[in-house]
């Protein structure tokens, strides 16, 4: 059964403008860092609705709606730092990193964000991942499994678990060199096992092969699995974990207009009937 994971961090009511403080290529992806001087630090798994202030409806009046993006990293800037070497302005708040791949008018525009640009932000939204022991009493550690752009929320989760001393193994998979990135930025200080469908890095094949081998060798109850990636990958992981009795949480994705429960657009089937609204009942759902 899918059910709602742990609850959320409350967001400031409404959208707010945040400044992009950095934007850079990361492999085939982009990483955009925003300075949020108003909102709380997000929990791993939470997401934001993003839209640029300028030139949003720029091509054929699209994009129109904001886009939902998982936060890939978030760090309170406790000591004021100089954002702009020309003006020596001091800024403080939470730095929010988003991993982006242009796949349509919305993400294409977000990939064009330049430092200094203003971005509409609504969030943090949605629920967050649970600690391993909440998923299974015997789970001492975590296995994070990411596919493609879906590696994003796992970066913040890894940092979160590292700070709490939770043993964590990371398995990431990419289609090919163009559709890969974020490793040097978001997973720089941790050991990662890689898979790629074209064999350009790590195991040639699917990241789920790595997971299958890993939980084959484990006492299944000793770890909890956390996954985010394309739907076929999540289906495979849910089945693998269910067959082996491994506790598992999935961060899912669905087309979404609002992010706060208003539009009812992001429905995903709830086993046993009916639908979940992924924005408020997810994006993290428990399986098994």
């Amino acid at each position, binding site marked *: 059964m899918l059910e709602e994971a742990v609850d*959320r961090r*409350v*967001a*400031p*009511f*409404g*959208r707010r403008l945040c400044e992009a403080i950095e934007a850079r290529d990361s492999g085939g992806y982009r990483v955009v860092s925003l300075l949020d001087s108003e909102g709380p630090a997000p929990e791993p798994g939470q997401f934001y609705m993003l*839209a640029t202030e300028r030139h949003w*409806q720029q091509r*054929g*009046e*699209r*994009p*129109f*709606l*904001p886009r939902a993006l998982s936060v890939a990293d978030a760090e309170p800037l406790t000591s004021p730092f100089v954002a702009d070497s020309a003006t020596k302005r001091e800024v403080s708040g939470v730095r929010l990193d988003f991993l982006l791949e242009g796949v349509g008018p*919305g993400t294409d525009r977000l990939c064009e964000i330049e430092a200094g640009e203003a971005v*509409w932000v*609504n969030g943090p*939204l949605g629920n967050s991942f649970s600690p391993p022991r909440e998923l299974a009493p015997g789970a001492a550690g975590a296995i994070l499994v990411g596919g493609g752009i879906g590696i994003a929320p796992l970066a913040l989760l890894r940092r979160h678990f590292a700070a709490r001393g939770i043993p964590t193994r990371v398995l990431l998979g990419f289609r090919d060199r163009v559709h890969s990135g974020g490793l040097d930025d978001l997973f720089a200080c941790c050991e990662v096992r890689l898979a790629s469908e074209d064999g350009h890095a790590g195991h040639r094949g699917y990241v789920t092969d790595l997971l299958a081998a890993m939980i084959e060798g484990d006492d299944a109850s000793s770890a909890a699995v956390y996954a985010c990636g394309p739907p076929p990958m999540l289906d495979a992981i849910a089945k693998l974990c269910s067959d082996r009795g491994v506790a598992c949480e999935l961060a899912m994705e*669905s*087309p*979404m*207009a*609002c992010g*706060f*429960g*208003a*539009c*009812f*657009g992001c*429905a*995903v*089937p709830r086993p046993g*009937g*009916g*639908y979940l*609204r992924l924005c*408020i009942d997810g994006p993290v759902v428990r399986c098994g």
Partner: protein
Amino acid sequence: MVELCGIELAHPVINASGTFDAIAAQRVYGDALLDDFPFAAFVSKTITLEPRAGNEPQRIWETPAGMINSIGLPNKGLDGFLAEDLPRLAELPVPLIVSVMATGHEDFKRMVAALDEREEVAAFELNISCPNVHSGLIVGEQPAETLALLEALRPVTPKPLIVKLTPNVADPAAVAVAAKEGGADAVSLINTLKASAIDPATGRPGIAAGHGGLSGPAVRPIAVAQVRAVAAAVRLPIVGMGGICSGADAAEMIAAGATVVAVGTESFRDPRAGKRIAVELADRYAAMS
């Protein structure tokens, strides 16, 4: 202050039914939502007699300056609404208008009668963009069906009945005239426009149901034209809606004949849009006086 069918409103901006879930929003934003509630009245999502799960995904599709939706009226049903949602919606700092829909007069009457007893309910919005199971006709597309429904419901409640008009007819004013004749206190328009989009990746409709309703700024000129036509045909308060994103848009709708305006799709982009638009509108009128 503004008045709508005897209900006092702090400003002339309310929400379009089904575009803001105040209970979900409170989970996301906490009590700040209540302290800074964006609407002068709250219109519930449409409720039906029995619970509904809603339509199979995909339910939404972005279009130029708008979106298509086919959500399918998911709701807890009358009993679930009365037990779970109504007590929570009663805590909102604004009057509550409950949107109801049924496929026959008896079901409609049962719902209105049950809600009429609850003092938390200030008024009803009748969603008539649905078929009458007996005639097979969409009630809101037929003046005669609309008149018959209002004549059935009018004796059931003294509370205001606001009829939500569909724009998918040749002459919405004729339906508004029938609503007034049947005893409606106000009309609200426009509902979404029937629309479809093809997913270029598959060559098939982007919405699983094949088509849905178009909303957003793309529909605003149509809404303005229909509000003008209805205002010219009947003396009834009008809740004007369709693509309102700003105080200027709200002023346009009021100039076209609306008494109050409702904000829908813009709330998806900006959760505080209702309040922002109310402030922009007040600033506009202050600058003119």
